[in-house]
């Protein structure tokens, strides 16, 4: 267009050549119709876009509505879960206390006339009630981890691990444990949650190296490009790799109660805590050759 206009002005400023003039005008007209066609095409495209936009918008609105509904459903489910754990904590504990209590009263008042076998039965009743109390507490703690808010701040994990090890000093004072503690970064995480993770992993390492006259426990960090990988390695009794997936399940145990005590909630808690930080958990080990537990935290 610009060129054409220039040519017209050149044409008018010099001697008027009618033939040139007509040609120029025809050219302009041709350009105009081309331009018009282009505009119409753009307009069509715009209309199509608007139409698409409308479709998208109604889709988004529908998705929003669905999201609101889902949120309401989730909130309702959460409420239900809360009242469930409330009654678990309150109503289930009461009969347990009664079982244990009256078994003990029976033992106390009838102890002198009861034979050893009968006393053993009473003892078993008390012990089982106590064990169920522990299981209920563990289950409630596990559900709390899933619901409580992750409060992130910059945490120096070196200090945190040192503090955790300090807590194990008393418990392990009669044991021969060679601790190897690596370098740790500062990461953004919930300090009390990460503390629980290390407490669980280290207490497992301490527990499952008990049969060893000299235990080796290594705690370290492997920095990667997008994440940090942390591990706790021990030379304890290890585990059969085919049960690897079971390790992190709720109340999953790979040992008998009389070999190693515990309810089997520790690693399930670890997994939940790490998942809530956007990380992963895994383990490798071999029977009799120790185990290594890993978890990752995004950078």
């Amino acid at each position, binding site marked *: 267009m610009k060129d054409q206009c220039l040519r017209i002005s050149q044409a008018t400023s010099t001697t008027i050549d009618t033939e040139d003039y007509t040609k120029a005008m025809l050219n302009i007209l041709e350009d105009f119709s081309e331009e018009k066609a282009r505009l119409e095409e753009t307009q069509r495209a715009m209309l199509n876009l608007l139409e698409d936009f409308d479709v998208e918008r109604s889709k988004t609105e529908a998705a929003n509505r669905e999201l609101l509904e889902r949120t309401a459903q989730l909130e309702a489910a959460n409420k239900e879960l809360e009242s469930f*754990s*409330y009654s678990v*904590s*309150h*109503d289930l*504990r*009461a009969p*347990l*206390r*009664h079982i*244990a*209590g*009256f*078994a*003990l*009263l029976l033992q106390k008042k009838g102890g002198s006339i009861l034979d050893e076998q009968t006393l053993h039965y009473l003892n078993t009743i*008390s012990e089982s*009630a*106590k064990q*169920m*109390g522990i299981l209920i507490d563990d289950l*409630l703690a596990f559900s709390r981890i899933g619901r409580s808010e992750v409060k992130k701040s910059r945490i120096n994990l070196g200090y945190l691990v040192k503090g955790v090890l300090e807590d194990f000093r008393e418990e392990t004072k009669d044991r021969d444990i060679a601790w190897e503690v690596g370098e740790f970064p500062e990461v953004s995480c919930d300090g009390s949650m990460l503390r629980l993770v290390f407490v669980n992993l280290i207490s497992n390492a301490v527990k499952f190296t008990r049969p060893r006259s000299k235990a080796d426990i290594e705690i370290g960090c492997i920095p990667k490009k997008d994440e940090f990988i942390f591990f706790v390695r021990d030379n304890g009794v290890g585990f059969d790799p085919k049960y690897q997936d079971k390790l992190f399940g709720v109340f999953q145990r790979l040992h008998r109660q009389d070999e190693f005590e515990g309810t089997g909630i520790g690693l399930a808690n670890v997994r939940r805590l790490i998942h809530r930080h956007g990380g992963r958990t895994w383990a490798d080990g071999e029977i009799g050759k120790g185990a290594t537990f890993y978890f990752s935290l995004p950078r």
Partner: protein
Amino acid sequence: MIELKRLLLVEDDPKDVELTLEALSEYNLANEVVVTRDGEEALDYLHRKGKFQPVPHGNPAAILLDLKLPKINGLEVLGRIRTDEKLKMIPVIVLTSSRQEEDLQKCYQLGVNGYVVKPVDFHEFINAVKELGVFWALINEPPPGSIAKVKAHK
């Protein structure tokens, strides 16, 4: 001779009442315990209403209060005690199965004097109740206006 003060136990579960009195009786503390079985009855006792009209004047030295109670629950009883001019000074100790953070928070907000989770283990339960009984019925000096002290043989 020791001086024994009256305790009010608010507990709906007869088995818990029995176990609690059993625990208190080990120190001869059970005699001076008044038992009410729901929140309404507890408030009636404190206000000397209905069947509690003949009860002598004076507040109990302390109240052992369960949270989950029929009719008026423990939190509400605690709230009403704390907003009543005549009752608000009575020490209240919550004795409950619930260790829910929410309950703890509400109780302390309402000015509870103690919060004890009933241990499942009976030895521990007996010990907890005994210690509570000894402290509130023997050691602690209750607020003025509590019921006249009763002489009892140890």
